[in-house]
């Protein structure tokens, strides 16, 4: 049947921090299982905090503060507004780099999936882009374009674009020619064909690219900031490192991780559920 040919691409590597979304409609038995799972998740979180606490009291060292100290630090940094300011700057860069990478990657991926010549022409570039170390692109962008925000965002986007291209190209290759034939037989305008016949087939691939993209981008953004910006979480981590302030480093890390997890859980996953509701 048609629906089964459009299941999520198996070839797409998804990061472990992006679990499958639960089915939209759930039978009572499934709900019970989900509730059990949720309890396990909370238990796992508690176990982590306990282990941390245990290790901290055993080590009794400045280099491994306990959770309470880190929480207190988060409170203090938030009250002093340093943390919110740096966090906002970093998130802004993440958002812009993410948008640019998704847009460019999607366009190139669709073109490469659609036209063999484009694929043949760009394939070597793609392999190069996939394998070039992030650090190299970051250094080169700063050297060539100066120590500014656009160089920073460009460096991040360049790191992400190739993986988006690979995923979207996979989707564009798998597009069902029979459905496009329907569009031609009924002489649909190209805009309608693109938006309502072609693009929906790529949605699972866009979502896969977006999820792996977010986790990759927020890791690279910190490096970019550490190397060449004077604000943002990455810059702040560098300062804290100079002072060997591990409590501060952990405070920033925790908050940043929480924000990214929230974005994944409250934005990306609901969006995916909305867009792929027909599959349930």
């Amino acid at each position, binding site marked *: 049947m048609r629906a089964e040919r459009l299941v999520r691409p198996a070839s797409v590597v998804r990061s472990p921090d992006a679990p499958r979304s639960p089915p939209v409609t759930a039978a009572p038995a499934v709900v019970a299982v989900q509730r059990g799972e949720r309890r396990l998740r909370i238990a796992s979180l508690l176990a982590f905090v306990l282990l941390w606490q245990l290790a901290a009291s055993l080590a009794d060292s400045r280099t491994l503060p306990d959770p309470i100290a880190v929480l207190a630090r988060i409170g203090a940094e938030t009250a002093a507004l340093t943390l919110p300011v740096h966090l906002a700057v970093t998130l802004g860069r993440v958002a812009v780099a993410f948008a640019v990478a998704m847009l460019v990657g999607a366009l190139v991926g669709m073109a490469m999936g659609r036209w063999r010549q484009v694929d043949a022409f760009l394939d070597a570039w793609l392999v190069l882009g996939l394998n070039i170390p992030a650090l190299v692109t970051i250094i080169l962008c700063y050297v060539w374009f100066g120590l500014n925000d656009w160089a920073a965002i460009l460096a991040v986007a360049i790191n992400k674009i190739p993986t988006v291209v690979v995923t979207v190209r996979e989707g564009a290759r798998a597009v069902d020619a029979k459905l496009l*034939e329907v569009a031609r*037989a009924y002489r649909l305008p190209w805009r309608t064909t693109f938006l309502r016949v072609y693009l929906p087939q790529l949605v699972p691939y866009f979502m896969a690219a977006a999820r792996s993209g977010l986790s990759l981008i927020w890791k690279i953004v910190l490096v970019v900031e550490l190397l060449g910006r004077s604000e943002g979480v990455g810059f702040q981590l560098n300062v804290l490192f100079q002072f060997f302030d591990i409590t501060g480093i952990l405070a920033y890390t925790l908050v940043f991780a929480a924000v990214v997890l929230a974005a994944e859980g409250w934005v990306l996953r609901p969006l995916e559920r909305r867009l792929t509701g*027909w*599959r349930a």
Partner: protein
Amino acid sequence: MLDIRIDAKRYPDRGGRAHLALSALQMTVRRGEFVCVVGPSGCGKSTLLNIVGGLDRVYAGSVSLDGGIPADTGFMFQEPRLMPWLSVLDNVMLVAHGDERARLRAAAIELLGAMELGDVLDAYPGRLSGGMMRRVALARAFVNEPALLLMDEPFVSLDSPTANRLREMLVAQWRRCGASVLFVTHDLREALALADRVCFLSPAPGRVVLDLVVDLPRPRNPASAQLERLHADLLARHPELLAGLPAAPGDVTEGRPAA
């Protein structure tokens, strides 16, 4: 009137030699006429429809509808080919064209109601049975009240009561909107049950080898004695012609009244 004249249609073969699919094929369909095209598999029936429907433009010859290029056509494929991400109603509305969306929507809902799909307007195709999906595809083909309807073995691989029900719906809609129909099938019984006229194609390269007017009153019962007689008579008179067809299409239904 639909005027089809295909001098030659070739496919590049794997070996590099061109495969001649259709050659010197000529046929016409009068306005409002229901014409079935019957022929052995591989004789180029689907190719013919793709050419008439404008999906395949690489051929020598010409196709015209009332003197122009066929523009407003409905097309029904062997598979339902619905968009799985669109609801039943949206699948039909996808191809509907015109300025008054509200009026089109009302017409589509009425059409789907006539196809007994009024309860599943908002369902996604993945939830429907095979027969229901074909009915959506049938509604989609009729929603623009096209001047020409092209059907490529649309009821294949359905159980016979379901297929018969769909044929009834097709005939009802065709009589209501008065479209010319070009219906491809390899099932002679189906052709006799539906058509005003049946064109028989030869094995590839396909051309029309027999043009038969079916003068049976409507509504027709596919299992009626009259139709059965005509079928047997044809097989007796033109054994060579029908050699490529399955000996008894619709074996399953044989001797059983249509539900």
